[in-house]
């Protein structure tokens, strides 16, 4: 065993505190340190993942109390995969925002990287922890750092967006706490595995109420309709990389939490159908709203909401194929949406209102960025031979196998809407006349690098999906059998 | 080798016959028109004189190669379609080049003529020609439909698309198709009115309005070619009608009588009619003729 899951939480948290201290000594270290941390964690998580795939999940106990009393971290194929994905995206975010502009002064950079570290800490923690209260804490960490990051560009709009986010976040916290309280009052334990073992003893009334509170609380993080009002403003106001981080990291952790709750902890069949329904509604409203947007980032935000809805539907299918498709969708969404955010935020970099029209005719002046954006657009609407196609295909097959033909039809219709608004942008980029007042902003080298990496992944996965499918299969299998999870956690002693 | 020569010889004779008969009919029509208008009218052989005069014109002009191709195309149509039509029922002598006539083939071959002439007319660059051409083609689209419906009705009724087959069917049943499928005959005859371009459907070459339309730029040899192929074409159409509806002809006399009987219909109808505008003509063909065509098909399907 190469390392312990604790490090995933400990190190970035530590880094977050060290950054300002080091900043006093050597300013540049503020930028470099997070990178080192993320690289280390990424390698570590990859190693652990390899280990886990061979021989079972790793259960780490904190402070010596064995479950169900103590807090424990679970690094299984499922959570491990998500952690690796998050860390990878975090690394890209770091590379991208190493120098977001030619010259950023010291103070904002410091704040930025501290918050970023905390964000990653919280998200990873949400995924890894096996204790719901602990999870609640991590969600709070994420929330706080996210509010701050949203308001990073200290301006009226960003403050407003951040405030909205704050309101919603605190609502979600309240509901989560309620849910946890209910469960604790019924079962007297906070350990997920323990709860899962005894959940059948709880009276349905409490059970369902708790579930509802959980769903509402986490749904706000996971951009579930109608709880996702904060998302568009936040995405459009936060800096580009932060938007990517939200789409790739925070939302993923929220979805993970919901899935963990629904799949592992509770034993309510109706929850799955509920996921399908709510996912569809989210998808519909998000896409229909996206097609009417005139601002770049808002459009991307709505589209990412829609993708999340799709993921929820996929999870709601409830079969292993469904979970597999859902994970694949999450992976693709993380990669492609980050790519779109990166490229898009450079396309509208210098336009004040961030209108879509301002990207007109930039294909000439910034060819690589435009190409990458087009690539992302093609991939996310699921055109072969790009990554997005496979996940969509798997999803449809999974849905068809469980006989949801109408739902398939609905989703396909919606994805036509998606095609329309993405292709509008691509057309504008390549085939429209350039707006006079827009000055193209050449991306910095590191930003370009991270974008190109993402683009390569999109293409490579498109041609060789086998690279990713194996691990996805393991992860989905791992999520599916909850008894195994329970036994693993509860059987642990030291 | 002998049969080929025999066939070719037969073909040549057929062409000559068609030419002579067609010319004579044209002359007769002029004569009859004159008599109806209480005139003496030109001699019956007048058209031959005209043809001879036209061909013995000393000089000629051309606007380009297509002007020469156009009349040739028209001639191909006339003679080619003549080749596919059995002139006499069991005619050993007037055997033609083809093996058995096929109606669909004939339909297409027959509409090629106007297109060829249209190309020829287009090359001359005379706007009147082009206008006349558009009118002619539009009218053609008009009358082709009832004509085809009639033929389809026949095809259905006798389950063959070959003229010879139809003729055999008539000789077998002993009754002419006029009587056994009257609606088809009506539709076909109404279509024929348009096919012969006599009034009321002669707006194509309205002499004073369009200066004789498509042929405006063609004199001398061109006019001769068109005239003769026109007369051959007239013979072809008449023979086709006779073959289809009047049970063909066993000998020349019968052929002449029957063809002339058919020929009288458009001619006399033309004598007493004013002129239609193009869209009126097209609408006319898509009125009653179409109705009769449908009737014919119904009839054919039922019986």
């Amino acid at each position: 065993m190469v390392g312990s899951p604790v490090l995933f939480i400990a190190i970035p948290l530590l880094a977050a505190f060290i950054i300002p201290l080091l900043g006093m000594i050597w300013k540049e270290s503020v930028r470099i340190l997070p990178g080192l941390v993320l690289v280390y964690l990424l390698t570590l998580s990859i190693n652990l993942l390899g280990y886990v795939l061979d021989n079972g999940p790793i259960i780490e106990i904190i402070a010596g109390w064995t479950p169900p009393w103590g807090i424990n971290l679970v690094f299984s194929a499922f959570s491990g995969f998500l952690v690796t994905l998050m860390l990878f995206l975090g690394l890209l975010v770091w590379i991208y925002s190493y120098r977001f502009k030619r010259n950023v002064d010291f103070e904002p950079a410091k704040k930025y990287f501290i918050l970023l570290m905390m964000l990653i800490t919280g998200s990873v923690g949400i995924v890894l922890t096996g204790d719901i209260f602990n999870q609640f804490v991590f969600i709070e960490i994420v929330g706080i750092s996210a509010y701050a990051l949203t308001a990073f560009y200290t301006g009226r709009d960003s403050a407003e967006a951040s405030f909205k986010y704050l309101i919603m976040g605190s609502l979600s916290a309240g509901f989560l706490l309620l849910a946890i309280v209910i469960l604790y009052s019924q079962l007297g334990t906070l350990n997920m595995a323990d709860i899962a073992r005894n959940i059948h003893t709880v009276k349905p009334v409490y059970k369902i109420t708790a579930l509802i509170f959980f769903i509402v609380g986490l749904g706000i993080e996971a951009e579930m309709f109608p709880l996702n009002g904060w998302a568009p403003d936040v995405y459009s106001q936060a800096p580009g990389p932060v938007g990517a981080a939200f789409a790739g990291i925070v939302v993923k952790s929220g979805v993970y939490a919901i899935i963990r709750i629904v799949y592992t902890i509770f034993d309510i069949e109706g929850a799955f159908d509920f996921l399908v329904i709510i996912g569809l509604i989210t998808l519909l409203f998000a896409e229909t709203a996206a097609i009417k947007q005139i601002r770049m980032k808002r459009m991307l935000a709505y589209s990412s909401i829609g993708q999340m809805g799709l993921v929820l539907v996929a999870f709601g299918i409830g079969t292993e194929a469904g979970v597999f498709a859902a994970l694949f969708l999450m992976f693709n969404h993380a990669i492609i949406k980050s790519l779109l955010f990166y490229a898009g935020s450079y396309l509208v970099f210098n336009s004040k209102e961030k209108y879509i029209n301002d990207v007109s005719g930039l294909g000439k002046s910034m060819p690589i960025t435009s190409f990458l954006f087009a690539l992302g657009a093609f991939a996310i609407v699921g055109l072969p031979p790009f990554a997005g196609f496979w996940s969509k295909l798997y999803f449809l097959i999974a849905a068809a196998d469980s006989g949801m033909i109408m739902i398939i039809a609905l989703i396909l219709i919606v994805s036509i809407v998606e095609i329309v608004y993405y292709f509008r942008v691509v057309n504008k980029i390549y085939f429209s006349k350039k707006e006079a007042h827009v000055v193209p902003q050449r991306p910095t080298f590191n930003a370009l690098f991270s974008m190109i990496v993402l683009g390569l992944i999109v293409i490579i996965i498109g041609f060789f999906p086998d690279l990713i499918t194996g691990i996805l299969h393991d992860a989905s299998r791992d999520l599916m059998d909850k008894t195994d999870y329970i036994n693993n956690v509860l059987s642990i002693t030291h | 080798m002998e049969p080929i020569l025999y066939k070719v010889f037969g073909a040549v004779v057929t062409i000559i016959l068609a030419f002579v008969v067609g010319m004579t009919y044209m002359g007769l029509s002029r004569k009859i028109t004159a008599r109806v208008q209480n005139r003496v009218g030109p001699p019956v052989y007048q058209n031959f004189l005209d043809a001879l005069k036209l061909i013995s014109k000393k000089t000629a002009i051309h606007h380009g190669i297509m002007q020469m191709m156009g009349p040739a195309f028209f001639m191909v149509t006339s003679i080619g379609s003549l080749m596919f039509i059995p002139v006499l029922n069991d005619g050993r002598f007037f055997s033609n080049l083809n093996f058995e006539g096929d109606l669909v083939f004939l339909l297409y071959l027959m509409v090629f003529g106007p297109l060829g002439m249209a190309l020829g007319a287009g090359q001359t660059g005379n706007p009147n020609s082009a206008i006349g051409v558009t009118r002619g083609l539009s009218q053609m689209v008009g009358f082709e439909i009832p004509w085809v419906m009639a033929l389809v009705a026949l095809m259905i009724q006798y389950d063959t698309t070959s003229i010879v087959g139809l003729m055999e069917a008539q000789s077998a049943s002993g009754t002419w198709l006029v009587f056994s499928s009257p609606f088809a005959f009506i539709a076909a005859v109404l279509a024929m009115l348009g096919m012969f371009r006599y009034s009321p459907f002669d707006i194509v070459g309205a002499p004073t309005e369009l200066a004789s339309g498509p042929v405006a730029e063609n004199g001398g040899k061109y006019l001769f070619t068109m005239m003769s192929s026109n007369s051959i074409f007239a013979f072809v159409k008449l023979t086709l009608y006779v073959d289809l509806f009047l049970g063909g002809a066993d000998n020349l006399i019968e052929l002449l009588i029957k063809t002339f009987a058919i020929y009288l219909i458009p001619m006399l109808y033309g004598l007493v009619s004013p002129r239609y505008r193009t869209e009126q003509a097209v609408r006319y063909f898509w009125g009653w003729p179409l109705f009769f065509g449908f009737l014919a098909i119904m009839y054919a399907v039922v019986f």
Partner: protein
Amino acid sequence: MMNDKNSQKIVDIIQNYARLHSLFVLAYGTGCGAIEIPPTMTSRYDAERFGIRGAATPRQADVLLITGYLTTKTLKRVIRVYEQMQDPKYVIGFGSCTINGGMYWDSYNTIKVLDKYLPVDVYINGCMPRPEAVIAGFVKLQSLIREGKAEGAKLYKDNLEQYRENQKKVIPNWVMPEYNW
């Protein structure tokens, strides 16, 4: 064989026979005389007996019928039409005006003597000449053709310069393609 005299003569006889019996008249009413053409053609006098019929365009016509006076303006068109006609072609001067100006003898804008501008084969005098006269004129033309004397076109070709000279005298702005026969 073509240069064999007798056969050539025979051919000519046949062709002339055809020509004289089918005269396509260009229905081009230049003057008041045009009013006399319809009665000539229609039932009463029925010129079609003689194979005379109207032709719509000069390309098809054999006979150019100058019906009455010619203003200088019209002359230009008439010349154009005549040059577009194809050999053999004939011109019939119709009415006194074509002979000597007739009642327009002192008009400033009608040409007096048609023969100076176009080679006239047959004159029909009278103002107006009645249809019988017209038909008589045609018969005269036919007899000329039969004898092979109706050589107007040849005349025109041979001394084109002189004709052109006369024409250009009365037609100031001369824009016309060359007559290249």
